[in-house]
Structures are given as C-alpha cells and as structure tokens.
C-alpha cells in the first residue's frame, strides 16, 4: 500500500458518481479534457444506466502518465453526487484515497471511513446562492465540483477557461456563468483544504498530436472515407452514436457545394431485418452501404447475413457489443457476440470478422471492412464494443494516404462486358474462390440472377447435387483465400517468454498494462480478424501456455481458436471477464495467477 504522504503525480483515478439526467457529463468531460490539455494522458469511461433520468451513473477518469487505458481496480478520488449510491461509492475508494461530497447537508457520519479523507464541499448551497434559475442551479453544481477539483488536483485554470471558451464560443453569458462556478469551487477548496492533494496533475507534453475521440465516431468517419453512401440502421444502444457520427460528418463533408444536395442517404429502418436488407440491396446495386447495431440486432439480421454469404453480396455490419444474453444490460460492455457473428445464420455459413481495439483502429478497420467485403463479396462484421464505441479514448491524429482507392474487388465494367464472350456470375476463373460480379444497369450482357436458393456456377437455379456442391465448395475455397486478406494479428515479444497471452478488441488495454507488471516474461498476440491468418497457428505452436483474455462467459475466442486451428486446446487457459464493466488490468493479473474460477472452463 502507498504511504499516505507520497506525492503521486499524473497517475491516479478519479470517479464521479452522479444521477443521470442532471447534466453531469458536460462537467466530467470538461474535467477530463482539461487534464488532457495539460499534456497528461487520460481516458474517461462512462458507466451509465439504461434509463433517461434519475438512476445512478458514474464517470471514471484514469490519469496515467504511462498512457494506460484500462481500468486499474483503484479509485483514488471519488466525487459522490448521488445519495442513492453513497455507501457503495464510499466503499469503492482505495485506502488512502479521498471522497468529495456535497456537504450542504451534514453527512460525515454516513460517509466516514478511517482510511480515507472526506472532502465536504457545500455545492448546493454555493450554487443556490450564486445562481437563480432552477436549471442553472442543477447544472452549475457539476461545474462547481470541477472547480474544487481544479484546486485539489492542481489543474491549470487557464486550460479550463480555454476549454469553456471553446465550448461556449459566441455564448459569452454561458461562459461567464460556467467560469463563475469554476471559481467558486476552486476558491472554496483553496480556503478549506490544503491544496493540492498528494494526487495531483503536473504538466507534461505527452498528449501532443493526440485527440480524444470515441470509437463509434471514429468508425463513422471511416465509413465516410471508405466512400460509403448508404447508412441504414435501427436505433440501439450502444451503436446509435455511430450513425449519429456518420450523419454529422456527412452533413459536414458530403453536401454538394453546387446543388446543396446530399451525396449520401441515411435511412432509419423499421427494424434490423430491414436495415441489413437495405444495405444488401445497395451493395448488390454497387453502392457501399453499412448498418450498425448491437447483439439483438445481430440475432435479427442472421437470416439476411446467411443470404449475403450464399448469394455473395458485400455489406458491412458494425456490431457494437453490449451485455447479453437477450436484452441483457444495454449500457454495459462485453465481447460476447463473437460466436453468434462468426456462424450467424443456419446452414454452413461463416462470416469474416474484424476486431478493432481502440478508436484509431475503428477508423482504419472501417476502410478495411468495406474493402474486404467487396473483395471477398461477402458480409463483413466489425465487432467493436460499448467501451471502445462510447468512451473517449486518446487517439493519435489520423493520417491519410491520398493514394488510397477503394478496392471494389472483381467487378466487370461496361467496357469489359462489351468485349466479354459471355458472363457467368459464379464461375471461379482463377481458383481463388472469388468470381466476377456486375452491377445492374451497366450492360445488357451483365445481367444475372441473385438468389439465396440453390444455384450453379452459371447463376442458374439448381437442385442438382454436383452443381450445388460445386458452389458450396468454392465458397469454402474463398474462405481460405480470406485468410490471406484479413489484417494480421499483432505480436509483441519479451525475451525468454515461454508463455503468452492472446486477446482481442478492448481487452488489449488491460493486457498491455499487465505485460509490464507480470512476474514472468510474456509474449502477446492480439487477434484482429476471423478467419485467422497463418500467423495465429504458428504463434500458438511456439508457446507452452497461452492465456486467452476475453470479455465473455463462454470463452468464445478460445472456442474459435480451438475449432479453426490444428492445435491442442489444452494449452489454452481462459481469463474471462463478463460482469459488464470493462476488464481491468487487476483482473487480468488475477487470471495469470490462477485466481479466477472461470479459467477452468473447457
């Protein structure tokens, strides 16, 4: 345990407990952004309820000069603004930590704990005195605790005011009101506590060229850059902000300067079955189209996913995973749709999956997804999750290669069709399992019939066993080809490592931190796609023990590894986390040390 007087700069966790619907998230991101603009790496995670007003919500800010992005298991400063959760919040504070609360009404008795320090700030009283409107009084309480924290944590006053200036550009009165609240909180803290605390922020320059962005926004941006013109969706948490982002960017980048017309179309479908039907219809017609959804939507899309696989129509689906099964916990995170996505739909159907780990990768994998979908002529599912998709992550400035051109795959244009003897849609001319396709309206000779029923290589309807099997076997060949195209896994090695970790997606952050603190050298491979490229088999073959870290109950990644590769599953040890909060480095460590019961799961 830390000695209670060591100064700890730029390495601590602040957690704010609020009631949802009280406007706190603006204050919390102001706090987070201000630290960020002092050059200190941060990440903010929002734990909100599936509700609009009145239920508990938390915001956790990890300040980490080392740039760790996962939960650490610690809470050094708790801001307790929600009476419903006082006790639970108090208990969560790490020994030696602080608890800031609204002391407008006395409650030391209820909150006291001998190994933490209470910081009472009469937020309500301050705001009721300083502001008149009901709205302002509610909202400014939040800004005021930010002010108090700015004193307690040594946050640069100018940085805060810059942030507010930006936010309220052109709304002077709002800027004033907010600055006033900051000042009040700040002054109260200075007057009543010895500021700064031993947990404090000291300016650095580690965040130059970084931005703070969430994965859904980054993925949406990727769709714009991929040249997607149709987004069809049905609202569902936590994927909604992806289409919101696409809308926002399209309004910014996709309005024809001359006509003012839109170079995109966004359709709020009546449900998920319709949403993916629309993207498949558009993909068949030559436009890049995508939908975004979460678990329940994947279940509803599975019939059409099977159609896309068998009729070979490209489309892109973003599954921003939340907690299942069924409706589950819509505002919590998990990686539990891996199996259902890999094998979505009946019959011998399998799908290409991409697993981004953070917003930057969400952007680049969006592009990758569209290219793969068209090159492989099949649906591609990007499995993100709520932690990546809805939280603000530090993200390097995105760079663009002007040379990039979308890979439309094997498409015959008018010219080529004009000179073609005859065209057969499902003929594999070069053995890679991928056939040439054509778009409607391009050339009379390009016409063919697309169907989810039995068809032969000529595109004709068939019930003939050989003809049917020929197509099905070719699809399997295409699957082999896919292994060469999908993003390779990323491997990190440590000298003398005999054991290794395999993880995917948002579990990466926790693993990265553990790699540096484990009591043994460990290699690490992050899976980024399914099917697995050859490197995966190799990596597993060359290690004795492998911990598979994932955020679900049933070891779904381990399942795919076991099924697809020629390996002895017995050297794979599961480290599972599935309570709905993002996995923390402490949990992974416990897993490595065999302290988790789930690891026994075969």
């Amino acid at each position, binding site marked *: 345990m830390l000695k209670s007087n060591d100064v700890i700069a730029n390495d601590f966790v602040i957690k704010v407990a609020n009631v949802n619907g009280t406007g706190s998230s603006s204050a919390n991101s102001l706090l987070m952004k201000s630290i960020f603009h002092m050059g200190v790496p941060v990440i903010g995670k929002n734990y909100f309820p599936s509700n609009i007003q009145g239920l508990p919500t938390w915001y956790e800010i990890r300040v980490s000069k080392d740039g760790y992005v996962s939960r650490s298991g610690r809470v050094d400063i708790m801001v307790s603004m929600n009476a419903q959760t006082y006790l639970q919040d108090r208990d969560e504070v790490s020994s030696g930590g602080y608890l800031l609360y609204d002391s407008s009404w006395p409650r030391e008795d209820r909150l006291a704990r001998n190994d933490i320090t209470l910081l009472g700030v009469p937020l309500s009283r301050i705001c009721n005195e300083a502001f008149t409107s009901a709205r302002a009084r509610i909202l400014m309480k939040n800004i005021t605790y930010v002010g108090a924290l700015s004193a307690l944590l040594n946050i640069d006053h100018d940085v805060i005011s810059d942030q507010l200036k930006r936010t309220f550009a052109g709304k002077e009165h709002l800027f004033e009101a907010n600055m006033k609240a900051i000042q009040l909180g700040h002054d109260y803290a200075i007057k009543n506590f010895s500021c700064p605390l031993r947990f404090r922020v000291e300016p650095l320059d580690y965040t130059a060229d*970084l*931005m*703070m*962005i969430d994965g859904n*926004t980054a993925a949406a941006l990727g769709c*714009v*850059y991929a*040249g997607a*013109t*149709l987004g*069809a969706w049905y609202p569902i948490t936590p994927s909604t902000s992806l289409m919101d982002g696409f809308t926002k960017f399209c309004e910014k*980048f*996709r309005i024809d300067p001359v*006509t003012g*017309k*839109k*170079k*995109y*179309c*966004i*359709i709020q*479908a*009546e449900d998920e*079955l*319709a949403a993916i*039907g*629309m*993207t*498949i*219809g*558009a*993909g*068949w*017609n*030559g*436009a890049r189209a995508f939908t975004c959804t979460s678990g329940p939507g994947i279940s509803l899309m599975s019939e*059409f996913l099977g159609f896309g696989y068998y*009729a070979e129509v490209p489309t892109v689906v973003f599954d921003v995973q939340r907690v299942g099964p069924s409706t589950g916990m819509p505002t919590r995170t998990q990686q539990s749709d891996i199996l259902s996505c890999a094998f979505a739909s009946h019959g011998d159907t399998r799908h290409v999956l991409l697993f981004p780990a953070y917003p930057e990768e969400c952007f680049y994998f969006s592009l990758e997804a569209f290219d793969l979908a068209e090159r492989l002529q099949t649906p591609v599912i990007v499995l993100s999750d709520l932690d990546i998709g809805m939280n603000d992550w530090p*993200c390097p*400035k*995105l760079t*663009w290669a*002007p040379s990039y*051109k*979308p890979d439309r795959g094997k498409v015959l244009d008018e010219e080529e069709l004009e000179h073609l003897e005859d065209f057969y849609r499902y003929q594999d001319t070069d053995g890679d399992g991928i056939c040439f396709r*054509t*778009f*409607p*309206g391009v*050339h*009379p000779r390009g*016409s*063919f*019939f*697309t169907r*989810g*029923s039995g068809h032969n290589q000529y*595109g*004709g*309807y068939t019930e003939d066993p050989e003809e049917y099997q020929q197509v099905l076997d070719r699809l399997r060949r295409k699957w082999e080809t896919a292994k060469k195209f999908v993003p390779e896994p990323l491997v990190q090695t440590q000298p003398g490592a005999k054991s290794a970790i395999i993880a995917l997606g948002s579990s990466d952050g926790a693993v990265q931190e553990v790699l540096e603190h484990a009591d043994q050298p460990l290699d690490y491979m992050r899976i980024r796609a399914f099917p697995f490229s050859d490197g995966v088999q190799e990596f597993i073959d060359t290690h004795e023990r492998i911990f598979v870290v994932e955020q679900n109950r049933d070891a779904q990644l381990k399942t795919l590894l076991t099924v697809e590769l020629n390996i002895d599953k017995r050297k794979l040890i599961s480290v599972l986390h599935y309570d709905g909060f993002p996995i923390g480095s402490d949990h992974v460590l416990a897993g490595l040390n065999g302290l988790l019961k789930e690891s026994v799961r075969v």
Partner: protein
Amino acid sequence: MSYISKPRVPYAGIKRNKLGLTIRDYEGGMSTLCAGCGHDSITAALVQAFFELEVAPHQVAKLSGIGCSSKTPAYFLDGAHGLNAVHGRMPAIATGANAANRNLYYVGVSGDGDSLSIGIGQFAHAIRRNVNMLYIIENNGVYGLTKGQFSASADIGSTAKKGEQNQNLPIDPVVLALSVGATYVARSFSGDKDQLIPILKGGLMHQGFALIDVISPCVTFNDHAGSTKSYAHTREHIHETVRSDFVPPAEAIEIEYQKGSVTPVRLHDGSHILLRKVAPEFSAESRSETVSYIEKHQAKGEIVTGLLFLDEGPGDLHETSDTTEQPLCAIEYDSLCPGESGLEDVYRIYR
C-alpha cells in the same frame, strides 16, 4: 428451370419497338409454375408492358421474395438483373437498391403470403417511404409453394370458405396500403390484360410506390369444400398419402369487360368472383373515400378493380432524403472522400 431460356428467333416482320427490340427480348426463362397458374398471365402482361414502354431490359431491376409468385422474375426480362430475396424481405432490398441507384426501374413481385404475413412490416414501411417502384402482389389467397395453407388476404372467390379460417377478417392489401400512405393503389385480375397492362405501365411511370394487387387464382390449391376441382376431391380419387401430389390439367383464365361494369369470373374450383371495374369517371378525393367505396361494393360481394387511388404529391424516397440527382452508386470516390484536409478538421474538433 429458370436458366433454361427459350430460343430467341424473332420471325421476320415481328414488331419491334423504338429500341429495335421485339417482344421476345422482354421474355425470360421457361416458367416452372403449374399450367394455368394466374401468375404466368401476370408475367405475360409485364412482358407486354415493358415492351410497350420501350424500356431497355438492363435498365430494370427485378426483385422478389419467396413463393410461386416470387419465382416469376426469372420468367420475364432475361436481360435484367434479378434478385430473389428471402421470404417477405424484398421491400428492404428494393429500398436499399433504389437508394443506391435512382436511375433504374424497379419492379417487385410478391405474393399475399410474402407481403401480408411475414413481410407486412417491410411492405408497410416501403409504402411509407414512397420508394419509387412497381410493387405487385400476385394474390391467390393461399401459400402456393408450401402447398395451400390459407394466407392473410381475402379468400379470393371462396364461396365455400365460410369455415374457421375466414372468421378473421382478411387483410386487404389495398386498404392496408391506403392506411399507411400509398400514393398509387390499384387492383386487377391476372386474366384481364386489357386492364392490367395499362395499370402496370402507369405504376412503372408513377414517381413513387405503386401497389398493384392482382387477383391471381391458384389452380392447384383452390381447396374449397364442394368444389369439383378441389384437392379434397382429388384426394379421394387417389391414394391417401398423396397430399396434393396430383395437379389437374388446367387452363389460365382470361376475361374482358367494360369500365364501370361488373363481371362474374369462374375460377378453377368452379366458384365465382364478382369483379367491378371502377367507372372511368371514378377518382377518389381521399383515402377514406376509396376505402368506403371498396367497403360498399364488398358488401355486395363485389371486388373493385382498377386504379383506386392516386396522389402524385408526396415526394419519393430520394426527394424526402434530398439526395443528388446523380445515383449514389455512380458518384466518383474523390468527391466522396474528404481527404487529408478533412482529417485536419476532425483533429481540430476532437483535440
């Protein structure tokens, strides 16, 4: 099967349209439907309509769901791209396809099962979005391809179907379509080319969703007690394990009658339906007026046919979405990608 297409040898002097195409150029693969199936008559009418409209086949997208009716896109316009979606989900495919390329003609062929049961949601919402397409329901009151279960639609021509099945008020696609905002609503009969072809052409020209409910008798599963050709009857003449394995030889039904008049039509099962062709002067001021007109004649056992409602006012999907004139699928990538400068803007916003 649908890929056996017929030889295309136009005899000398066969009529050609502006594009220099003959009617044969608008035909498709050989039908695999039952001899006498109403659906084949509709296919023939479509061939004629496209020929007369002088549309280039490859400028048409043929879409359907699953069912006997949904097989028919393979039987016309071989030169057009076709897509057999999954059961009941063609409207979504059509919506997405249309959004991607507004320059093609879209014709969707569906059945009463495909559109009124599993597909009723997509059907209603495609109407609501006023997707610019011709949408045909080949309405036979049964699930043909799965061998004759009742569908949710009116039990066409059933005098004897007063059993259980009929106690649920059947869903009339015309009335339903009107209630969710359809802008072109018509009904016809598969055997009435004179009426059907103009209605099809009108629907193809309509700037929005054109619903045409075509009564299209199923010769095989018109299973009415007391009907001399019912399969109950057939069954008792052959070995009992044969559930509808025998399809009696039949001819397609053809009729002709005047606007404003009523004509009885004898169906394969021997029962009759009364078709009333709307008077030439008929034009419904409002949706409810059309509904009450239909209701009134229904009470007399008449099924009203013709163009029953038209509203050219509302814009189609593209108008309401304010998309570019140029089809989305045809916009060159460079004008879609914000490039490096775009990422600079993004950086500034999220910094």
